[in-house]
């Protein structure tokens, strides 16, 4: 149901141009349907039995008066007026059995239904807002105790993670330590000091490598220790502090403190010039 079926040429522009426009949503009414409903209520009859013709007349009269007062009516009201004027004319004329469209009686009944529906929803709306409302009539707990969230971390790792981490870590360090050890040479000074301390412990011939092995923890150090100590030994022999003895090439080298040097400490003897060379 729509008013668009009518051509409506409202002569609203009749109003003198110099008069201020007083646009009224026809005070107190929520649109034309509301106005109609109010007028219908004045008939004080059941909306189902209302005379739509009488209602249309009342509405048109109301609009006429408003226009006489030069109230500018919202378009909604004028559209309704036009539609009601049309309906009125249809209702007054004997109904021509048209093949199409609604009969005037159908149109009137539909309008009556719209009014009843609006009234019903109004009543329902009123009842709804009479219900107890939260924050007005009933209240939630003023100081709720929110549920406390405790986040407990759960750590997870697999045995594989553990073992592969261990292997990776150890292997990495093992390899890097080897490299580190290669660079760690025994200096001549270190070798000399160590040998002097070693030899001081015994007057007998002793195998050099036995002394050395007692010192060596890392196999990688063997070459540098051997080289440095041999050089240091030769120097110590040249200075007359020690004597060396080797039976053959690549045979073990025996070493001892020079007997006449006992108690002389590490200091260079004054008679260092006649020190014998190494025997073989």
């Amino acid at each position, binding site marked *: *149901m729509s008013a668009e079926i009518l051509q409506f040429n409202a002569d609203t522009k009749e109003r003198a141009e110099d008069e201020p426009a007083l646009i009224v949503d026809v005070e107190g009414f*929520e*649109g*034309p*349907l*509301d106005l*109609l409903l109010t007028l219908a209520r004045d008939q004080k009859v059941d909306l189902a039995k209302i005379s739509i013709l009488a209602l249309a007349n009342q509405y048109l009269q109301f609009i006429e008066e408003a226009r006489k007062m030069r109230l500018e009516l919202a378009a*909604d009201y004028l559209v*309704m007026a036009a539609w009601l004027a049309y309906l009125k004319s249809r209702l007054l004329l004997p109904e021509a059995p048209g093949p199409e469209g609604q009969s005037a009686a159908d149109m009137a009944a539909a309008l009556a*239904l*719209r009014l*009843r*529906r*609006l009234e*019903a*929803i*109004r*009543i*329902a*709306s009123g*009842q*709804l*807002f*009479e*219900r*107890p*409302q*939260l*924050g*007005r*009539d*009933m*209240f*939630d*707990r*003023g*100081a*709720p*105790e*929110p*549920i406390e969230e405790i986040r407990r971390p759960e750590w997870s790792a697999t045995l594989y993670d553990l073992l592969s981490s261990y292997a990776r870590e150890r292997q990495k360090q093992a390899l890097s330590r080897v490299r580190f050890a290669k660079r760690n040479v025994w200096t001549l000074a270190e070798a000399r000091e160590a040998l002097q301390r070693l030899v001081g412990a015994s007057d007998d011939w002793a195998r050099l490598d036995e002394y050395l092995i007692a010192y060596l923890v890392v196999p990688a150090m063997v070459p540098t220790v051997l080289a440095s100590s041999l050089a240091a030994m030769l120097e110590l022999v040249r200075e007359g502090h020690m004597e060396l003895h080797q039976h053959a090439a690549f045979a073990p080298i025996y070493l001892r403190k020079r007997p006449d040097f006992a108690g002389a400490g590490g200091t260079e003897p004054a008679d260092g010039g006649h020190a014998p060379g190494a025997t073989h």
Partner: protein
Amino acid sequence: MSSANLAEKNVVMLEEQTEGEQEINTRPEELRLIEALLFAAGEPLDEKALAKRLPQDVDVRAALRKLQTEYAPRGVNLLHVGNKWVFRTANDLAWLLTHESVQPKKLSRAAMETLAIIAYHQPVTRAEIEDIRGVTAAKGTIDVLLETGWIRPRGRRKAPGRPLTYGSNETFLSHFGLETLSDLPGLDELKGAGLFDGALPSGFDVPMPSDDPTLRDDEDPLEPGDLDLGLAPRVEGEE
């Protein structure tokens, strides 16, 4: 007061004094648990949420019904709103608690009617609301309602222009203390007057208001972005 009455009253008071003790013995523990959960929450909880925290063998629904009966005569009642449960002050005590009320923004008559139309006729488009009210909806009426959080856009009507359809949500039920939409006042009158019948324009032939979120045949789902237009009610705790 007759002396007989007085005697009776004394007996009653004596009984009351041991009530607490009695309850320890007879009251099922799950009532304590549910009581505590609902009191603490301060907002409606559904049975599933309750069941999750309770021992498995508890008949949650039965326990809630029992609690509801227990609390009915008290100053705090247990309400079933939507499919959730919540403790609220008894609504006859509004007078006592006026100082607690944060004067809610009063809705205009237009907004109240629009809300009723959405609640009773959902899903409903703006044009359909305007048709019932016989007036162009003032801009902002629907926005105001969206702001209350009582209504929500639920889909788009399969019709030219694909207008948004609106429906009510749980906050609506909770605000008005309704268990379901069928508890809406005046429904019988509306139905009796045939106002939900086929005589109505299409879209109004729903036999019963329902806020079932399932889309109707003539509804399409919302599109991404529909809820970003500032139209959507703020979802609590979304941030």
